[in-house]
């Protein structure tokens, strides 16, 4: 059963979470019960495909052993080679699942959410290397973090130390009322975004483009804007469901969107769009890359270093979406925008060519919006094959 895909799913989750809500309102601890709910919900989600369920189990065992072994190793030693090997091992299942369909017909490794769960495992390995995770992690918490059902299919991508802190926070009955209120509010916002606005755009606009438009160019242009809006409302709607259900369970999953279409520039956009993904790449790819290059003095020029960092980040992000040509092109396009904006920003800091006032702010938002929409047009695949 697809998470948040049908009313049946919502009704079953509501029934499963009724004891959670009662316990919460009474100010009692409910995480043990919530772990049971997670197991039941996972059975529900993966019951229709046993192959995926098996792949999920093998993946989880692999990640847990890797994390446990690496933490134990890190207490004694800290070799860079071992660290890189651990990172590769943690990404391996995802890489195999993306490559396998090109070699054989049945994908035995992939399952719903593998792209998102991989981030959680890799992140723990990295924070262990940095010395931020020092002690062995309790197995039930580690499993709960990786398999937390509200965010299993498409994020938001949480971080272990943040999640762990939420688990330890005592929530009084009075405080839980706020969790409940915010949770329900987000879930209903999700309905509005995904099943009313997103659905309407897709059904009454995108599907009708053949009747609305009069030329090939016009059709592609309308599709570009329609698809951009649909993508936002569909994904932000899903994220609201995931975050809302997390809140009901006493976990404040991080936000994924912050009004992305009012971004002033492309850098601002990546602080507002799919936030947990872009912050993951920022913290674990871009900053680490720039740090190593600067520290080892491989490249003297600061601009070259930061631009190279953006190229690495966005090409990787493109590949992460999939190995299809449109995703790689999307990554390259975003890398180009970041490098171009970075160059402009440095130029402008020196020459003060673009003044800051209300007018230029509005203009910046409009320009950024169009560049962003064109990016989604590439992402949709229709840039290559046409609508």
């Amino acid at each position, binding site marked *: 059963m697809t998470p948040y895909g049908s009313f049946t799913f919502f009704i079953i989750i509501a029934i499963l979470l009724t004891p959670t809500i009662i316990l919460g309102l009474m100010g009692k601890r409910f995480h043990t019960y919530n772990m049971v709910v997670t197991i039941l919900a996972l059975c529900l989600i993966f019951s229709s495909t046993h192959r995926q369920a098996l792949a999920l189990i093998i993946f989880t065992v692999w990640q847990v052993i890797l994390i446990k072994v690496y933490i134990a190793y890190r207490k004694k030693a800290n070799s860079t080679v071992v660290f890189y090997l651990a990172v590769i091992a943690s990404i391996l299942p995802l890489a195999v699942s993306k490559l396998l369909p090109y070699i054989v017909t049945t994908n035995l490794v992939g399952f719903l959410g593998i792209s998102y769960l991989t981030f959680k495992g890799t992140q723990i390995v990295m924070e262990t290397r940095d010395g931020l995770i020092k002690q062995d992690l309790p197995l039930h918490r580690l499993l709960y973090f990786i398999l937390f059902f509200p965010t299993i299919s498409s994020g938001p991508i949480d971080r272990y130390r943040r999640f762990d802190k939420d688990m330890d926070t005592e929530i009084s009955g009075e405080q839980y009322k706020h969790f409940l209120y915010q949770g329900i509010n987000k879930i209903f916002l999700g309905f509005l975004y995904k099943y009313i606005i997103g659905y309407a755009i897709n059904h009454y606009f995108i599907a009708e483009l053949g009747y609305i438009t009069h030329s090939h160019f016009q059709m592609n242009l309308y599709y570009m804007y329609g698809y951009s809006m649909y993508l936002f409302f569909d994904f932000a709607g899903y994220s609201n469901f995931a975050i809302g259900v997390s809140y009901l369970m006493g976990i404040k999953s991080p936000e994924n969107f912050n009004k992305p279409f009012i971004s002033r520039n492309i850098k601002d956009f990546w602080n507002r769009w799919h936030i947990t993904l872009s912050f993951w790449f920022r913290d674990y790819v871009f900053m680490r890359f720039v740090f190593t290059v600067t*520290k080892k003095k491989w490249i003297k020029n600061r601009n070259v270093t930061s631009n190279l960092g953006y190229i690495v980040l966005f090409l990787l992000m493109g590949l992460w979406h999939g190995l299809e040509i449109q995703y790689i092109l999307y990554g390259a396009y975003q890398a180009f925008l970041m490098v171009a904006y970075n160059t402009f920003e440095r130029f402008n800091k020196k020459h003060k060519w673009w003044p800051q006032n209300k007018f230029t702010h509005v203009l910046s938002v409009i320009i950024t919006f169009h560049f962003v929409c064109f990016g989604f047009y590439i992402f949709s695949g229709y840039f290559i094959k046409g609508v």
Partner: protein
Amino acid sequence: MDFKQEVINLLVEICQDDVVKENPDIDLFESGLLDSFGTVELLVQVEDRFGITVPITEFDRDTWNTPNNIAMQLADRK
């Protein structure tokens, strides 16, 4: 020169703006003075000059947001 002043001088170099010195409570990220690239430069310099190692993942923008806060966080790790 005291430690806090040294940190603020370093931030002036990295942000290339004297406002850091004039208003040490300014939010460096909201004002656009510091971005992820500047943050990395800061961490590299902090390691080289003060011998304090701060892992990138430790640098949380909510607590390391102003010159004063950064100086305070670093003083704790000396």
